[in-house]
């Protein structure tokens, strides 16, 4: 079965650079969520989109932005990267309805040096 796809899987950037992470949800899923998991931490919710509109916002820094496109894929744009941004970034998708389950992608490991 098709799963959530994230690219790239690994990314190394320097401080103050920008990075773009991509998420391709499971086909027909219309909702995308982004989570950040720092080393030894639990995943923290960043932001979500439903039908290309932002549906919820968590602890996403102002330096980050995200959007969902017409084909439902989503991109997380990160600017002015800091060392503390080094983390595993998960994307999850779901079919928006009252009872649903989020399916997580494999994550993108971002290392800022």
């Amino acid at each position, binding site marked *: 079965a098709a799963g959530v796809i994230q690219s790239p899987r690994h990314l190394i950037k320097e401080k103050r650079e920008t990075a773009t992470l991509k998420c391709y949800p499971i086909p027909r899923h219309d909702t995308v969520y982004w989570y950040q998991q720092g080393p030894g931490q639990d995943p923290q919710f960043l932001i979500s989109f439903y039908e290309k509109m932002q549906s*919820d916002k968590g602890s996403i820094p102002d330096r980050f932005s995200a959007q969902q496109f017409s084909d439902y894929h989503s991109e997380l744009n990160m600017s002015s990267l800091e060392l503390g941004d080094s983390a*595993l970034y998960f994307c999850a998708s779901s079919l928006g309805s009252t*009872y649903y389950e989020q399916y997580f992608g494999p994550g993108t490991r971002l290392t800022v040096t």
Partner: protein
Amino acid sequence: AQSVSQHNHHVILSEAASLELGCNYSYGGTVNLFWYVQYPGQHLQLLLKYFSGDPLVKGIKGFEAEFIKSKFSFNLRKPSVQWSDTAEYFCAVNAKTSYDKVIFGPGTSLSVIP
């Protein structure tokens, strides 16, 4: 606001020992409950979930969890652990509404000694 607590930060067991990881959540409404496992260097995998119905839920790899509504708990159990169960275990909850984010607990690191 929703929150999830897990009783133990780190658990060490010998192979064949029984496992119980505690999880409590705080939320006034009805919730969906999950346990995720994260093996070293890997991504989150769903072990089991509870949406409604039988409060005793069976998941993959011999894991089960029991939802006790009155205690706001969703403890994970396995009768006999294996070395391959060494991983980080996250309890998670989301509100039973549309498009709601998943809130994760802080995680319990399980080390199984052969």
